[in-house]
């Protein structure tokens, strides 16, 4: 049995008048009897339909084995009772052979499985998702090969990539208590020791109907799709509760620093600051602050680091929204031979200036406009639309109308930007990572 809750459009008009047709407002939200939320958004102008299953579990939920959320995501592709006879990677092959794409990703907060296919293949991909949720087989044999694949992924993204090294190190500094400190891909030692039984237990704990959101966007018929989702997911169990890690990050009371030695020509510099959760009203001001600092050639860091000091090519700053506590990062890959300390001083001085004096109206308007355009342009595909509605629903429990997102950005004043920079990007809250080669005479270094 399914109950249609609402069309988001009914909620939007009373707050902010949209300036154009916001496609996400047509989303229909349906809750199945077992607690599964299904978001459907028809758009017959596209030749594609995107099916996404969002599991509200990420590496931030791990307790014993790091990397298990992501490793498990890989296991979801390796076989199930009724598909294993078709050979390895049968899910992927069945979708690819019909021209579709199938993939998944894991973050600190969520694990997302998706298929983008032609409309006639939607029934197949709903059935395939249902099959792996119903009849997943997690065997030691499959795990043996896959853990090596994941260890190679770890080498690619973290161990062999200096920017990956810097990022991993910065997260470990910024979070001392919260599991966000651990890389989503996990530590090699844990990947080597986790068993099929551990993966199974992970599935049993977190993959319950009331911890999942199904989003479908693009060219399809809502009633037909809902009937199929009901058929293939309606039997999924409801968990009485989903365990969450209790840790909350204590306030940081002094700068933390890490040096990573890696034989790079171009040193890397990264400053990380723990920020508020995704539910905080301060996230918009932090996004705008990141734009003022490093959004484009006219930004403060670009002018100071690239045009004046000539120490870097492309400085970056961003606020990474996370459910429990986000992180603000500012940094740059420096030009070969650059003075790392000088570059660090420039970045921290620019942040201090923004904390001391509010940005000008025009500077704020510029940063805000970039975010507005990004929102408006970022919904051209069925996949992007499905991602947007699912992301909103998982984070806020509803679809946030675009007009509301834009209004929130427009409500940010220069003083707000100054306040959040002063509050969150204070010197005693920063975590600085430098990546550079070891000195030639330093022993025991790679």
């Amino acid at each position, binding site marked *: 049995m399914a109950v249609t809750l609402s069309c988001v459009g009914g909620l939007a008009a009373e707050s902010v008048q949209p300036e154009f047709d916001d496609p996400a407002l047509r989303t229909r939200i349906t809750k199945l009897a077992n607690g599964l939320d299904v978001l459907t958004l028809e758009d017959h102008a596209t030749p594609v339909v995107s099916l996404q299953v969002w599991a509200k579990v990420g590496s931030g939920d791990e307790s014993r084995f790091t990397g298990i959320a992501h490793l498990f995501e890989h296991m979801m592709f390796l076989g199930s009772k009724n598909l294993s006879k078709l050979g390895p990677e049968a899910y992927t092959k069945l979708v690819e052979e019909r021209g579709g794409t199938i993939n998944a990703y894991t973050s600190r907060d969520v694990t997302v499985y998706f298929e983008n296919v032609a409309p006639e293949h939607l029934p197949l991909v709903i059935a395939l998702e249902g099959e792996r949720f119903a009849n997943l087989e997690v065997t030691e044999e499959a795990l043996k090969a896959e853990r090596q694949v994941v*260890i190679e992924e770890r080498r690619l993204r973290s161990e062999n990539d200096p920017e990956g090294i810097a990022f991993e190190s910065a997260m470990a500094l910024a979070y001392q208590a919260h599991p966000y400190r651990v890389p989503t891909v996990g530590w090699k030692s844990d990947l080597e020791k986790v068993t099929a039984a551990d993966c199974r237990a992970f599935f049993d704990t977190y993959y319950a109907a009331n911890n999942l959101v199904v989003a479908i966007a693009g060219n399809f018929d809502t009633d037909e799709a809902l009937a199929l989702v009901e058929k293939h997911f309606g039997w999924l169990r409801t968990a009485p509760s989903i365990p969450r890690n209790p840790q909350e990050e204590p306030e940081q009371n002094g700068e933390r620093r890490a040096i990573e030695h890696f034989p790079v020509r171009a040193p890397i510099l990264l400053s990380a600051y723990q920020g508020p959760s995704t539910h905080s009203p301060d996230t918009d001001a932090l996004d705008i602050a990141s734009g003022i600092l490093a959004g484009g050639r006219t930004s403060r860091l670009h002018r100071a680091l690239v045009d004046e000091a000539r120490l870097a090519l492309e400085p970056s700053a961003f606020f990474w929204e996370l459910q429990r506590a986000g992180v603000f990062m500012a940094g740059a890959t420096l030009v070969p031979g650059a003075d790392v300390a000088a570059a660090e001083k420039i970045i921290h001085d620019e942040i201090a200036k923004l904390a001391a004096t509010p940005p000008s109206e025009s500077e704020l308007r510029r940063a805000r*406009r970039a975010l507005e355009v990004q929102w408006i342009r970022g919904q051209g595909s069925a996949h992007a639309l499905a991602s947007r509605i699912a992301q909103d629903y998982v984070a806020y429990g509803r679809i946030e109308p675009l007009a509301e997102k834009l209004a929130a950005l427009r409500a940010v004043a220069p003083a707000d930007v100054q306040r959040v920079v002063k509050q969150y990007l204070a010197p005693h809250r920063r975590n600085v990572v430098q990546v550079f080669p070891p000195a030639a005479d330093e022993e025991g270094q790679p």
Partner: protein
Amino acid sequence: MRCAFAAIAMTTVLAGCASATKPDAAREPFAWEMPAVVAADRPIVDAARLHRRTLANGLQVIVLEDRRLPEFSAGFIALRGAAIEAPSEAGLAVFTAALMERGAGARDKLNLAAAVDDLGADLSLNADWDSLRASVSGLSQDFDALFAVLADVVRRPRFDLEEAKQLVAEQRAAIAQAQDDPARLATKHFMRALYGAHRLGTPSAGLDETVARFGPADARAFHARVVKPPGGILWAVGDVDPGALFARAESAFGAWSGAPLAALPDAAPAPEKRRVVIVDRPELGQVQVAIGHEGIARTDERRLEAQLMNAAFGAGGFSSRLMNRIRATEGLTYGIYAQFAQYRVPGPFVVSTFTRVSEVGKLLASTFEELERLRASPPAGDELERARSQRVGSFPLQLETSEAVMRALLDLEVYGLPRDTLDTYRARMRAITPEQIAATANALVHPERAAIVLVGPAEALGEVAAQYGEVEVVSP
């Protein structure tokens, strides 16, 4: 927010009163056991939204209307790029494009950037082997301002001396930075091993020694050589009125003239024997691998056959032979991919992957076995049909957005391919026979003269590499 939460709370009460049962396998065939549904081909290009015009000076104008969102992109393409550079000027197309962004018309670099940033828009200039491209994108309400910026950077770049000096320093730093990236190192040395002194043998962004000599006069001369209306294309996609765009094109670009385009480069000779190169990076625990040889040009008549064959071999995701064996079965890598890189001159056929140091021997053996098997047992029967179904099925999905359709249309123009190519693609792909695939595999796959590049610790790799030929060890 309150409304949605209230509704959820209300229906949660209903949750216990209904339940569905776990599906019973015996009752009906599974969806994946049913014959694949085949829908009629939907047209790729909506003719009613596509508008073309050629100005008197030879400049082509193409507009693809899509008024659903209040945004647009527009750009200019010059139909020559890095491939026409002499060896001594390697990197000049990339340098020229980058310098065009640093001041144009009445605005210096910062004022130009501010004009774009103030609108939350993007301005992008770049060059590849076969073209030099400028584009803007933003909200349609800002079309006039952004189109003016586009016209300025294309027609009136300032090429200031100080900006050129800074850019030279930045490009040289970028070239050095790229050497920290194992994948880019592998590509650089693979192309050198395969193409040697031919222009393709040196990165399109050039070398430190060539870039170091560039000044504003070089950029100005290259700009005059390639950025001009004959053969140039002005395009726009999105929330754009075609009539207004044509009028604006006429006023901004109509009085522009230029000589015919520069001659096209010659193809490189095919390599005669296998070459093995180790790029020594002692600290790496994972080795980047590139294996391949000469391939085909973008206009090669066998390109569809090559694409279909390669979908089964190495470009078809998990359905491909390489992924199936080397990742799914042997667990040697996270990714392995083969491609025919196609330019105006033939580009390489290359397999790219990576694995831990201890498994490089196994990975090379498996990959070479698969290359031999591709020739000895080319895809046929079910395997070929699955690859074909993938290519045919994925084609409209890749062209979902109007921007993607415009990119594909521009690619046809750059390479002089027929304008109906997108709408005939699926029929042509369906018509390819197994015999054509076998002939293509025999003609285009030559593992015996493949170049092999390994980026990793030379000391640990030397013995394995030596099994494939004489080894050259180089510094990054």
